[in-house]
């Protein structure tokens, strides 16, 4: 069977080089250009597979346990919610679901840091969350993270 990465690459090339120049309709060209952009993005995701999500979980899970401790005193309810998300990530069979739980832990931490902490503790915690979330974003964009 033709590997999906190669099939996607060839479909994109054919659409771009053979079909796009032949489309006369304005709307048709808009839709085809959008489809090519989607295929470019999807092709990158197919090539990278679950590696970005796995890397994000590997980085965020130990960090989130630390956020849970950092929030325990000032925001115990938020700390408990972060712990729930960590548990979900640990139990998830799918790396995508585990990554989503970790991003939820990051979101809850950010919300609690702004609501319950004062500088410099707030800034330190936000700084770490931002650094790790940025790494995840870079992986989503196809970089190393």
């Amino acid at each position, binding site marked *: 069977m033709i590997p999906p990465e190669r099939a996607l690459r060839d479909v994109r090339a054919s659409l771009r080089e053979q079909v796009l120049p032949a489309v006369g*309709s*304005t*709307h*048709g060209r*808009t*839709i085809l250009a*959008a*489809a090519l*952009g*989607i295929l470019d*993005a*999807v092709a990158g995701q197919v090539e990278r597979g679950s590696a970005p999500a796995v890397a994000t979980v590997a980085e965020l899970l130990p960090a989130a346990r630390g956020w849970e401790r950092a929030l325990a005193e000032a925001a115990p309810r938020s700390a408990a919610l972060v712990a729930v998300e960590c548990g979900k990530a640990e139990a998830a069979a799918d790396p995508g679901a585990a990554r*989503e739980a970790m*991003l*939820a832990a*990051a*979101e809850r*931490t*950010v*919300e609690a840091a*702004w*609501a319950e902490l004062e500088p410099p503790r707030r*800034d330190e915690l*936000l700084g770490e*969350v*931002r650094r790790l*979330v*940025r790494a995840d*974003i*870079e992986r*989503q*964009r196809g970089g190393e993270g």
Partner: protein
Amino acid sequence: MASDTRTEPARLDREIPIESLAGHFRERLGAGAEIVAATIASEGMSDDTWMVDVEVDGTRHELVVRRYRTGGALREETDPERHFRILAAVPPEIAVPEVLWYEADGEVAGGPFFVMRRVPGRVVVPWSPEGRRYLAEAGAGPLGEEFIEILARIHAIEWRGGQLAFLADEEAGSPDDDGTRRVAAMRDVVERYQVEPEPVLVDALNWLEHNKPAQQRTTVIHGDYRSGNVIFGEDRINAVLDWEFARIGDPASDLAWLLGRTNRMGSDLACYMMERERVLELYERHAGWVPSEESLRFWEIQKLLFNTGLWMSGEANYLRGETDDLTLVRWSYTLPNMRRMVLDALEEAS
């Protein structure tokens, strides 16, 4: 790409519902009305612009139809009837297309629409190579100064007691506290369209709530003032387009948007036209004041968040089955780029 299609439609684009539209024009303009040319000028995230030439008893009318699609990005925030009403109410010192009528019946053209008279000139796609070249040249000359001078004039519109006064009372809260209103609106947008956890956006919302600047002025705001939303003539700007996000509020938001990173991707030139310092210098010359740096920083993050909300709404509407528009799907894949820009701005501001 610099587009001149606003002046010369030359054919009948099959994607435009010509027959249904022709019937509508006959009702509006008389039994003799006939569509002689119709082309798609642009297809946006929530609406389309069609150039339509209609002949009535030997007289040619060069018109523009702005059609709003169901399920487009931020459709809940882009009320076409409100847009029509704003265009009709803009005072004559600001050139805008003359609006003729609004049609709410979505059956006629696949969504509600309004009709305007065409304004001659050129609408530029700012991020295209041709557009960038044109704008850099225009920005260095008198068109650049006029671009900023018009913004100062928009901010000087006497709205109290005028036809645009209705914009001040559309939301809870006061237009004198625009920051609070906009942050509340953005929180609502993020909650409504969120399809996955959004730590960056939640961070940005909280940053905005903790860093609201003192509002220096309360004026008419265009809401999307940039080089792609004006019609350039040979030696002057012929019209200001796209007033759908207009409101009464903090004019620093217009400047922050014009200066912001989404309007100068890969360029040092604000709106691909001129340096930040020149924008602020020209604005101060024509408006007599300039917003504080703190205010510009606040509004840049707010506008980035708003832009990200546009992308999110397209993605959410697609996932909910409200649209099958692939252009919105395409934008959803660029959401990581938007989140990164918000994060960059947050870290620069912190």
